């Protein structure tokens, strides 16, 4: 028969030799292999203490951005929700009142903004769609939760800390990638 590749190997069906029948040499060989693994360095990453380094383009949990003065960028235009292939984003718009200029950058803002992390496929299309630089995918992923409702992230989960009031937390949330911009 013609071989398609030269990688195939015939099954070895020769009767066992006395040496092979004794089992013990084979067992000793196996045990030396397992023992050598015993002393090998373990590839385990102890998760909560150590974390796996993510690539700079990793798409993780979303953050809703603020500008330098700590105002929310999002104007509730809904482009992200339209762009989202998984239909994970819902929002409710509201109009900015007099005296709220220090809270919201635009005249219209999202009163409610929810992302269902169980639906989200972390494609990043919302980030690309946003005209206001308001949504980013960060470098963390959603922690586990006991309930499905726990995965629906509201505005207080998503909003980035205020750069004026909590500059350190803000820097941490911004992460490596956004800082370069």
């Amino acid at each position, binding site marked *: 028969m013609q071989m398609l590749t030269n990688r195939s190997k015939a099954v070895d069906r020769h009767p066992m030799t006395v040496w092979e029948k004794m089992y013990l040499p084979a*067992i000793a060989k*196996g*045990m030396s*292999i*397992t023992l050598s*693994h*015993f002393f090998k360095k*373990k590839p385990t990453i*102890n998760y909560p203490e150590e974390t796996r380094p993510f690539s700079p383009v990793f798409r993780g949990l979303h953050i809703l951005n603020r500008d330098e003065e700590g105002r929310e960028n999002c104007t509730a235009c809904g482009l992200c929700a339209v762009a989202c292939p998984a239909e994970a984003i819902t929002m409710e718009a509201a109009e900015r009142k007099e005296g709220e200029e220090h809270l919201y950058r635009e005249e219209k803002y999202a009163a409610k903004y929810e992302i269902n992390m169980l639906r989200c496929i972390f494609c990043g299309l919302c980030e690309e769609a946003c005209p206001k630089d308001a949504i980013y995918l960060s470098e963390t992923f959603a922690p586990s939760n006991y309930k499905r409702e726990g995965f629906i992230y509201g505005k207080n989960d998503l909003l980035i800390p205020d750069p004026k009031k909590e500059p350190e937390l803000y820097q941490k949330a911004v992460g490596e990638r956004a800082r370069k911009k």
Partner: protein
Amino acid sequence: MIQLAIDLAFVLEKAILIGGIISVSLLVAMYSTWAERKVAGFMQDRLGPNRAGPFGLFQPLADGLKLFMKEEIIPNASNKFLFILGPGLAMMTAMMTSAVIPWGKQIEIFGRTVDLQIADINIGILYIFAVLSMGVYGIMIGGWASNNKFSLLAALRGASQMISYELAMGLSIIALLMLTGSLSLKTIVELQSASGGWWNIVYQPLGFLIFIVCAFAECNRTPFDLPEAENELNFGYHQEYSSMKLGFYLFAEYINMFMSSVLMATLYFGGYDIPFVNDASLIESMGMNMVAVLQGLSLFLKAAFFIFVFMWVRWTIPRFRYDQLMHLGWKVMIPLALINMLITAIVVLIKENGWPF
């Protein structure tokens, strides 16, 4: 009156000894479960349990707590009395072996010399075999009382496996007994630790090999863990068990493992003998109690090594098929043990009577 006082002290001494040895065995069994998972992890390039306490050292406690908290289920169709008796019997027979093992030479407390052995009966080995073969009842009764065909099948497997391997084990021991001429474990250890005496492994390498293989089979450890073959019998004879009754079965396995490790160390590796040191002269220089502690430690280390070997083999070798197991037991182990016995007998005879030709 004096007679009575001495007896009371004797009873107290033995009671303390029994309590101590039982708690040590339980502790060792507890930490064997931890060690087993650590060894398994390390051999598979993992870390093993490391969350409960430093290095996961509280893991056995957590496991025990979990087992206690689990719901206690007794199947309706089971024989309730036997169902409860099964794990108890398994545990009891596992613990009973420790009675005749010498854990050290002697200690001196309050002017009394205390043997570190619960009972120095002159048929120690026979006693161990008797208790070991009773261990099969734990499995049999548990499997039968569950009224589950898989459990019954597993119990039958366990019983036939234990019986077949006990034969070879007994034969390999007979060769050892011919050498030592005594059934008492204490005498066997003393012969090995006497100055000029070698450990029995030197005289009986083949016997030891047979013994260790049979010990694996007796403890139902891989590669002979057919009674609890998860993929063919669901869970084996303890399938219907839950809560601490299951825990008892699993625990009994680890105690058995510890006991057979101690037995191997005692029979073939000099027992409590400290290697490369003359114990008698050490007693003179360091005092009896100190040496007894060292001896206990030495036995313990030997046993720990064998426990490690048990685990090492478990995570290396896959399970035997049932016919292979029987083939190995009846057609390989027993003839080998017989040959070993024959050779030993000839050598012993020649040694005693000189070359006859």
